[in-house]
């Protein structure tokens, strides 16, 4: 079913998707003319497939549960922020704070993201086919952040238990973020994510893994310079 944002208000479109008509049970939607509007497809809670044709504004697919949402364009700040489950696929680039604070689900970004990708992530898996900007993975707590390109300054600053995998160059690591050994299990898991994101030409073996040195967990006066 096509939902044209030039003809139907954003509020009505979101209302329709948030409260599916059980009698019709239509679960395939195409949204046209998004024109950079904010909060498109925010708060969906059911299994459905939505394709947005064009660029979206802030917080697209925020708080998503179960829905599969594809953005055929660029996404603004906070795409899939606080996602719980489901899958969000951005075919263009994403702005800052992609996947922020999200607890679950899979976020795939075909292009690059700007700063703070995966900030405070709590269990989401993020696959970025391009590069990520500065302070990505900042205070991230759990989940996997996979970057096929490069990472900007202060990657993984003050992170907890998120695994960060980067294939390209890392400009610098943030406080308490260190490179860690890749064992077979990590490579296996990483290959599974690459496959899920439909990446065929890359191998898990070529990535480096970064995680927490766990030195900032408790206050130690010797670490004062890192706070």
């Amino acid at each position, binding site marked *: 079913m096509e939902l044209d944002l030039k003809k139907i208000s954003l509020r009505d479109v979101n209302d329709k998707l948030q409260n599916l008509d059980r009698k019709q049970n239509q679960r395939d939607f195409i949204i046209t003319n998004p*024109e*950079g*509007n*904010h909060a498109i497809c925010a708060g969906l809670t059911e299994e459905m497939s939505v394709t947005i044709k*064009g*660029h979206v*504004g*802030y917080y697209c697919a925020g708080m998503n549960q179960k829905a599969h949402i594809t953005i055929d364009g*660029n996404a*603004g*700040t906070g795409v899939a922020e606080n996602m719980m489950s489901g899958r969000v696929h951005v075919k*263009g*680039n994403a*702005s*800052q704070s992609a996947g922020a604070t999200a607890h679950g689900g899979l976020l795939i970004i075909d292009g690059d993201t*700007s*700063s703070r990708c995966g900030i405070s992530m709590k269990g989401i898996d993020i696959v970025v086919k391009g590069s990520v*900007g*500065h302070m990505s993975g900042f205070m991230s707590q759990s989940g996997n952040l996979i970057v096929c390109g490069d990472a900007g300054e202060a990657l993984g600053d003050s992170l907890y238990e998120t695994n960060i995998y980067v294939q390209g160059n890392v400009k610098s690591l943030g406080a308490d973020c260190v490179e860690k050994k890749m064992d077979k299990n990590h490579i296996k898991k990483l290959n599974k994510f690459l496959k899920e994101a439909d990446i065929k030409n890359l191998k898990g073996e070529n990535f480096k893994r970064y995680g927490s040195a766990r030195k900032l967990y408790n206050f130690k006066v010797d670490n004062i310079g890192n706070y």
Partner: protein
Amino acid sequence: MCGIVGIYLKSEKFKDSLGSMLSDMLVNMSSRGSDSAGFAVYKEEDKEKNFKYSLCLNGIDYEKFKKEIENKITILNIEKNSDHVIIKAKNKPSDVIKILNKNFSKISIVGYGKSIEIFKQVGEPKNVVKKFNLKSFSGTHGIGHTRMATESAITTDGSHPYSTGEDECLVHNGSLSNHNNLRRKLKKGGINFHSENDTEVAAGYISKNLSNKKSLNDTLKGALKDLDGFYTFVVGTRKGFAVLRDEIACKPAVIAETDDYVAIASEFQAMAHLPDVNNAKIFEPEPGMVYSWGN
């Protein structure tokens, strides 16, 4: 918050619709600030390269002002647009500014130069663009601003764009934390300020460096060190404009570039209506990098 918009035309194609493009962008950015709005449009200079002055009357009677100013300077053209007046004069800028300040202290000089015209006023962006009929403007490039006031009063003098030098102007989304110190330093160096606003200080800083023959690129690189705070800046000059974001880059900016124009806005939605924007090269300016067109 605050919203920023700008267009630089790379070809002649949209010359006559510059005002209309800018107007729609500004109105869209009302969601980021509706306390005041303003815009600067750059038109081609005349053959004699005479100077124009953009003035806000602040309640002064136009006819009376016109009569009096005509006795004091050689006016080539005078045009009223709502509560603003654009005068074109033969005299030197330093003389005109001195005469205006001495005799019409209530009037604000919002900008001057060979091609710039600036209009700014309190009120919702849609009312401000309508009042000055921005849609009818043509030109080579223009920048605009919608303000959500934070650190200084909602007045004409507190509105953007700020112009502190010939054909220069600045719009800003963000806030500066060292503006009081910097204002004191710049005042000692001979720059005059008309408000308590932080952006006016940044504009003064840029003008001061440009008048010392520093390039725009070097000036903005210097700003990264000397200006403390959050900002996305768009700086307008006679030839084009430049964009700078601070290194933390909390304040947004999106650029869309086609063969015919470069557009910048705080959010993509402000340029969603621009011609052929879906085929434009769209990107976010990187933190701490100077981008410029036409300069």
